[in-house]
């Protein structure tokens, strides 16, 4: 799969409260959640960003609560991928489980700026910063996680492997 989009850059420790504030957690509907994604980090985000864009974060992206509403809101909005220096562990699990593509790459994050055009070739594990004409090889996931990703998330994996 090839993903293409513009990137939006955030700093370190982007927590799940700013990704989707608790005041919107009285629903589980991805479309409703998507209306408020990143709202407390950048009020204008949903107006500026488009489907297919990419979120870039620093260290510890998705720290805080276990709310799966966070990756669901990001995915629901149509963000193609989140690339960060590192992810908080529950967010990491949740993203894999629901099939939101995530990539860890410090080098990429350091060398990219907001607004850069990106291309991600998922099957080959390659990210290209088209604006800066740079290419990065992405570190592979452990085999077990890759199996969940390839099956399209945890529930599909359970359906195929466990039932």
């Amino acid at each position, binding site marked *: 799969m090839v993903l293409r989009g513009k990137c939006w850059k955030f700093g370190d420790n982007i927590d799940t*409260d700013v990704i989707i504030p*608790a005041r919107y957690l009285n629903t*589980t509907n991805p479309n409703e959640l998507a209306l408020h994604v990143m709202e407390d980090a950048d009020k204008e985000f949903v107006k500026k960003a488009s489907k297919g864009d990419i979120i870039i974060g620093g260290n510890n992206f998705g720290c805080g*609560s276990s709310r799966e*509403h966070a990756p669901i809101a990001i995915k629901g909005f149509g963000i193609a991928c989140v690339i960060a220096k590192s992810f908080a*562990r529950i967010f990491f699990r*949740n993203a894999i*489980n*629901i099939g939101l593509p995530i990539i860890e790459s410090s080098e990429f994050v350091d060398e990219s700026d907001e607004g850069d055009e990106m291309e991600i070739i998922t099957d080959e594990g390659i990210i290209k910063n088209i604006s800066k004409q740079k290419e990065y090889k992405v570190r592979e996931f452990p085999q077990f996680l890759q199996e969940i990703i390839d099956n399209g998330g*945890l529930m599909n994996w359970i359906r195929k492997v466990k039932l």
Partner: protein
Amino acid sequence: MGMTITEKILAKHSSKSLVEPGQIIECEVGIVLGNDITAPIAINEFEKLDVKDVFDRDKIVLVPDHFTPNKDIKSAQQVRQIREFARKYNIKHFYETGRAGIEHAFLPEQGIVTAGDCVVGADSHTCAYGALGAFSTGVGSTDMAGTMITGKTWFKVPHSMKFIYYGKLNKWVYGKDLILYTIGKIGVEGARYRAMEFTGEVISSLPMEQRLTMCNMAIEAGAKSGIIEPDKITEEYLKNRSKRKPIFYFSDKDSKYVEQVEIDTSKIEPQVSFPHLPENAKKVSEASGIEIDQVFIGSCTNGWLSDLRIAAEILKGRKISPNVRCIVIPSTPEIYKQALKEGLIEIFINADAVFSTPTCGPCLGGHMGILAEGERAVSTSNRNFVGRMGHPESEVYLASPAVAAASAITGRITSPEEVL
């Protein structure tokens, strides 16, 4: 090579004689937990799979505590969904409003979790039960759904990090101050993906409720879990409480830690974590004078009976500053009843505080005391992220119940020493 308590529990639940950090294992889960925010998504996922039943109706715990008593129609719908699911599958541990407490206080109190358990909960502060000598960690809703079906989940065995607390504990310094100080020292990702093992002479004499406060906040340093080796205090706490037989595990002398942090507690003053990260911990003396609008004493971190007793000791015979709203919330109905018996509730009300039925409420900016733009609160909860208790431009300062109560009286962040 020896194993840590965390590795031993994980080895046991994955039927292995040895596990090593970094290894991916599949574990049998003893308890799987969800609340009114996370369980609805788990139930949706569960139902997608068209399975006939849950893996074990006695091992699933559903606690509506965040937006309860329900604050609006949508949150009422969410609890209805949980209630119907619980009825359909005859879930033993479903607790209605009035009977339910805040999950991470309620499960230990009711003996639903015990030493040696492997617990997952669709709530990040599930790490609290490490205080009982269990491996316990937060996951998301889809993981909860998967576990409700299979009774199993996967883990990467975490590296363990050892914290040794020694020295004397100063007056007005509690488990809350120790953990705020520790997070201040190592940062909000200082223990990312790791197990924090709290040890040392100070921990050995720390009461269980304060141990629970410390393990509760392991996640605020990015940890997968927090844990304390069981001892006499654990045994005493679990006696007549634990619904299953506790199993005690201990770290081997030659077990490996990726890092060891030694903390001299005699140097620690009451702590206050400044907005907007728990790692911004400072001495209360450095915060004194900051004016506040609200005080919240409660949450799964500090809504224990011992917390209410401390707050009441300070508030007794005094009045809350006219510029402050003070909200006190016990974590469970049992604590509520005991507070009533001991006359604590009367002390709070006489001091002009609000006293409520158990709920997460203000801790996550849900209801029962939301902050307006520009307002500032002292809270005994565990997070002070942007917008955590209300408007994105409000501020939360984290502290112990003692500092919170003292601050409520003066209307500015205050050391308990100053008012007593």
